[in-house]
């Protein structure tokens, strides 16, 4: 007699990338439209997240309505600018290069104690200043490029790279961004290189975080859904990896919120007075 074995159920990180690409394209169209924008601005680092965001923006708005910015610093890896050009070329978007060295070094000059780590944050915030200034100059909405993994780990500069008002990739883990990038035709050289914030020479994300994205994303998905550690360990993950994931998530909740306000009334914003960000009423 035939025996038929069932497939065990489990959490699935693999997505239908054509469907995701279609959905995120619609997201960009709709979220720009009600804000009154036809154009978008993307800071392109040479990495896979911003290249993927650029691809989506070009799809949603047409390449002629997308401004790509490369914002190198003298200490940035030359490869980053090369890959930014490659991404812009792949999606037919003009790339504007603005060197942030004078901005950053201007500040570094008045604070000789600036450490490489602090300087990395200054670079990210200098890029934010340029992005928002050119947003106004070009009447183009800045797009965020942060993925879910780095958002959960707090692996970004607060009020720096997290500042743009809309973000198509923020609910996709890094491994899912890789899948989407392939679907959208992001060049292999960009998809396959080790991810780096390129804020400090020689750094890579996985060395900073102390674990690989592929392993971190599976742990995160189970942790966020409430699976106990023992369950995650049984999937083949080490206790120290699980601990590291939980540590990174739990020391950075503040970075995913607006600043803390002392509540004194029953109309405290976001505590008592709750409105979605797209809320508006018709006035007479």
């Amino acid at each position, binding site marked *: 007699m035939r025996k038929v074995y069932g497939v065990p159920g489990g959490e699935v990180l*693999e997505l239908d990338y054509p469907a995701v690409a279609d959905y995120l394209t619609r997201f960009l169209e709709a979220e720009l439209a009600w804000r009154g924008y036809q154009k978008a601005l993307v800071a392109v680092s040479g990495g896979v997240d911003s290249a993927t965001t650029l691809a989506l923006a070009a799809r949603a708005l047409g390449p002629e309505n997308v401004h790509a910015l490369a914002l190198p610093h003298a200490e940035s890896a030359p490869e980053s600018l090369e890959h930014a050009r490659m991404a812009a070329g792949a999606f037919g978007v003009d790339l504007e290069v603005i060197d942030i060295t004078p901005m950053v070094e201007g500040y570094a000059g008045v604070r000789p104690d600036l450490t490489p780590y602090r300087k990395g944050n200054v670079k990210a915030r200098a890029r934010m200043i340029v992005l928002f200034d050119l947003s106004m100059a070009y009447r183009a909405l800045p797009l965020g490029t942060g993925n879910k993994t780095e958002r959960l780990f707090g692996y970004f500069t607060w009020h720096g790279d997290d500042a743009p008002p809309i973000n198509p990739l923020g609910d996709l883990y890094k491994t899912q961004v890789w899948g989407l990038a392939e679907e959208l035709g992001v060049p292999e050289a960009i998809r396959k290189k080790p991810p780096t914030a390129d804020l400090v020479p020689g750094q890579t994300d996985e060395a900073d975080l102390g674990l690989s994205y592929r392993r971190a994303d599976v742990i995160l998905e189970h942790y966020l859904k409430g699976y106990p550690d023992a369950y995650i360990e049984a999937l083949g993950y080490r206790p120290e990896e699980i601990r590291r994931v939980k540590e990174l998530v739990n020391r950075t909740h503040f970075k995913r919120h607006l600043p803390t306000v002392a509540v004194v009334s029953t109309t405290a914003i976001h505590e008592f007075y709750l409105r*979605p960000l797209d809320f508006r*009423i018709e006035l007479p």
Partner: protein
Amino acid sequence: MVRHAVLQLAPEKGQVRRNLARLEAALLELAEDGPQVVVVPEAYPTGYFLQGGVRELALTVDELAEALDDLHRRAWEGPLDLVIGFYEKDEQSGDYFNTAAYFELGGRGLVHRHRKVFLPTYGVFDEERYLSRGHGVRAFDTRFGRAAILICEDFWHSITSTLAALDGAEVIYVPSASPARGFSGPRPANVERWRQLAMSVAAEHGVYVVLASLVGFEAGKGMSGGSLVASPEGRILAQAPVFEEALLVADLDLARIPPVRYDNPMLADLKSGLPILWNDLRRVVEGL
């Protein structure tokens, strides 16, 4: 045959007048198809996610009826039945509800009002923080037959459609607003779930199911659409695309219900069997 049209529209948040004008434009577009019943999604006049803004934007049923009467006079010749979801302010109590109403425009006016019983308050949803629950499900008579209204999560509990069918409904109208989630397949998981639910409810009771599902993005949450009409044997007669506005037109042949139920007499069996289960049902409910 009763010609139905589902208006799968994307409202602009909080823009009640503009959204009703859009509804009017959609009716004009539909005039050549001659629908007799038009079904509009949950919370259409305002958009779905309002949080505390419900109290700024909720309408009384009379305010909505007046706006729809005006719109009907301008856009339509002859009577038109219209099912629409909206946030309702009860004039007497001042309570707020997630409501859908059946209007016979150019006729009896308000025929039936269903206030959502199952208010999702989990995950991305927070309805019970801002709204009161409705307290009943009942079928009602339209000029074409007998119908019931269930709103969104109401329909995800099979007991509500069971009640509606036992109460004589031949058509169940389901205005909904369903944010897309679950992208491991070509259609979002919630859209698949809606399809399965509609097919199984329709087939179990031998009823038509008309789902009107909102579209449009609301601060990152993409309302999925995929409105549909399911036949009494559980086939999908028409389905709108996901994520985009669409007008779905389908004819409901109510005369098919008796023969379909004769072949698959689940509702008749339920009527016979339910009294046998009544004591256990009461025991379980009283033990909750």
